[in-house]
């Protein structure tokens, strides 16, 4: 069971309180009806599924109920950081060589 730091509650809490909500930083187009079928496929179905650093969304379901983002290594399952929804994708991730 993972231990996840909620950036709103500023506490590490067990995974049971959280729901994973898929890959982060996939914005819904403000002009979604203008998207091509290809664009829509990319938006809704295509995922990076990285072996390594993933940017993903979680919801503190049984806590503050907020959605937030996390950076995690999918090989070790270690969390590198979490940050609030709406904050930009971190340019630099601590401890990760780019």
């Amino acid at each position: 069971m993972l231990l996840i730091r909620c950036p709103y509650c500023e506490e590490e809490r067990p995974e049971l309180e959280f729901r994973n909500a898929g890959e982060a930083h996939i914005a819904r187009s403000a002009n979604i009806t203008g998207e091509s079928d290809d664009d829509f496929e990319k938006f809704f179905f295509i995922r990076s599924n990285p072996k390594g650093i993933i940017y993903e969304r979680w919801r503190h379901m049984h806590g503050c109920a907020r959605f937030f983002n996390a950076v995690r290594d999918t090989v070790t399952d270690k969390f590198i950081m979490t940050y609030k929804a709406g904050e930009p994708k971190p340019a630099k991730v601590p401890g990760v060589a780019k």
Partner: protein
Amino acid sequence: MSGAFRIPGAGRLKQAKTARFSFDGQSYAGIEGDTLASALLANGVHLVGRSFKYHRPRGFLSAGAEEPNALVEIRRDAARKTPNVRATVQELYDGLAAQSQNRWPSLAFDVGAVNDIASPLFSAGFYYKTFMWPKAAWKNLYEPKIRAAAGLGVAPDQPDPDHYSARYAHCDVLVLGGGAAGIAAALAAAETGARVILADEQAEFGGSLRFESGAGIDGQDGFAWAQAAVASLKAMDNVRVLSRSTAFGYYAQNFVGLVERVSDHLQNPGRDLPRERLWQVRARRVVLATGAIERHMVFADNDRPGIMLASAARTFLNHYGVAVGRNVGVYTANDSAYAAAIDLKKAGVNVAAIVDLRDNPTGPVIDEARALGIEINFGRAVIRAGGKLRVSSMTVQPKNGGGERIIPVDAILMSAGWTPSVHLFSQSRGKVAFNDETKRFVPGAYAQDCVSVGACNGTDGLSATIDEAYAAGAKAAKDAGAKVAKGTKPKVDASESWSRGMLGAAPGAGPNTTVKAFVDFQNDVTAKDIRQAVHEGMRSIEHVKRFTTNGMATDQGKTSNMHGLVIAAETLGKPIPQVGLTTFRAPYTPVTFGSIVGHARGPLFDPTRKTAIHPWAEAQGAVFEDVGQWKRAWYFPKAGEDIHAAVDRECVTVRKTAGLFDASTLGKIEVVGPDAAKFMELLYTNPWEKLEPGRCRYGIMLREDGFIYDDGVVGRLAPDRFHVTTTTGGAPRVMNHMEDYLQTEFPHLNVWLTSTTEQWAVIAVQGPKSRDIIAPLVAGIDMSDEALPHMSVREGRICGVPTRLFRMSFSGERGFEVNVPADYGQAVWEALWAEGQKHGATAYGTEAMHVLRAEKGYIIVGQDTDGTVTPNDAGLDWAVGKRKTDFVGIRGMARPDLVAKGRKQLVGLKTKDPKVVLEEGAQVVADPKQAVPMTMIGHVTSSYWSENCGRSIALALVADGRDRMGETLYVPMPNGTIEVEVSGMVFFDEKGERLNG
């Protein structure tokens, strides 16, 4: 007397308390504190089991958790039978009853042992090469026979009356293993004030100090020191000490699972005690002090009862006071077996000879053994054991060949060296490294915040162990945030030390031999099986393991893995580290399902949700159905009524007079804020901006992919306030879906969402008399059709409590849904019921609700739609705002396949024979005469007998259904094809006049 092999004055058990027990029906006496193994040995019983494949007679290999052979069934009563209990772990209690397993008719004479004679046929993986002809024989003959022969114990056949409990715990330092290393680490950590948990799998702490007669710490015998140290730890508030507690799994982020055996050792546990308790511990730091496990020697017939690990014989003697024989032989490749020989000799047991594979080892234990007059043979091997049900001799030969000598013995103590227990370290995803000098895998790179100390870290000798462990314990506490230690390190006065040994097959069992030299005892894997696997192309140790099943028995290869690896490496001609270890997988030792499950059984398997009106329905004799976690009243049978009669009556009564229905399980979400309407516009297909306060609208929610996700009636209470309803099952995911969009896609919208499902009880009153029933109880709401038309909502009071009164209908009749605070739900229901009785109203359940709505063609999301249905498919285009430029799903539902011809559309079906009711899920075809596989063009989603229509009715998803009105289609059933006509979805009151009737 508790057994002829009990040595007076030896061991630590108090003779005072005798415990009677039975094994295979024979009664014996043991002493409290014994294990079943020590008690049987005290009585001279070595034969306790039969092996998996060859049914070879087996005794005790070990005195601990690594035991592969001595598995028995413990039977407290008919319901409390536990198979595959390790006799070396099971503590004795008065009245314990044990049975041997995997033998017939008896342990001493087992028919299955014919497999041993035919064993040349049963080589590794033989079953992959045969049993294929004739083909049908696999299923009817071979497989049933193989299955009957396999399996060790017998599964229980009654529900388990015992209960299991669970605890979560957090600590700064979790110390796993309570030998000298673990205790020293725990002391150092505890002295800092850190929160410490110390756990050990044994009943008593001390680990190898239980048998190491040569250890002395702080002026005491090692074991006595351990007891005193643990007592001092127990006295500290910041320390929790868990005995009989096995750490079985090391998970991500220092999350460790342990099982505590709470009452299996007690004669009368009482009903209050759980059988076992699961501990799930999150630790800032973990200290692994899991010790090492002695390996056996791999030689011919090394599995005969009476042949065991030297440390096991020592434990039986020094702790339990039991001699494992009267005339023992010793076969070793390292020093530790000498200590066993010395202890036994001193206790008066004859040591026939020590056979040492090494050429000319020197050292104090060797000198001591020699001084005691024990015969020592260097550079020699035991190439064979004699005897069958019990070892009777060992055949000794110079290791490079030469004359054989048979030495009569009644036990052989063996030691090939010690394997560090890196199981938990490896589970923590740490990488083991091979130490070529000491020939063992030890912890290498760490993946988590843990540290290994003592024997599991490859540290030899008590002094070095205590130094390392004490420092590590202090550091772990410091790293976890505690102060610097202020205690004093235990001082080692005397210690035993040994390392090295040998790996793989011993002389006489090498390549080109055909003897049965067992590597994995339980699974009957021999050295030659492993070589055969390599010869057959199995180059990965994982292939070797799977092909031979080496290390896959209930002991998970604790004694066999290293030997197997080395034999494979030698056969491959590769260095050991290049072949590598197989993955260590949780659990370390087998864990009872019940412990993992804990309280989550029966009613606690999953929460049961009940509405405020549930008790009333129960009192009325309602039959309930499970809908998600909810219990919903399904129908209300009167005396003599079956479901059909009850539902027919309920349906007719609703349309004739009125009915009351508990709709409380519907999801409710309050959408509030200045941007509430904008938010609703985005989340639902319908337009909302222009909906006037006080009016309602049926809303459809899509997923982004354009398929129907949920639906429900939404009331606008105020410009900035919507009362949203969802399906019963959909409530949580709709709330999550809304929150997701609000928080992440539309955060600019000023809206607040609140789930109010549990806050409102909802009573639907439907039928021509519904207003007459409700009106007398309502205050503050004008109930006239002009003031409260269909699809409107008002706030007021009913029975004196606040209500949101919806004028709406899911039956096609004049109808209302009365929302009241849940605490008043039953009272208001009872008041409405009393009014209803004056008009002959009925209570109706979900089945009648389904029939009534189907008569009107109202859909149920999740039944008539299935996650692949668009609004257009469902005939709900009218509910999609045509001028809207955005809502969730607007793009998805425009994708090519979602607007293509041939999609399945929701229509009505009428059977040609009105009496025939279709089966829900039945498939529809256009041509009933076609051959299988048939082209199916649709399926029945809802189907009922409609007493109001006097015929059956059905809804179905049919390809291009709306273009097929009036067409005849077919529903092929196993006993004949049913003719149906495609119709509209409304079967009753097509004009909808009854909404105001």
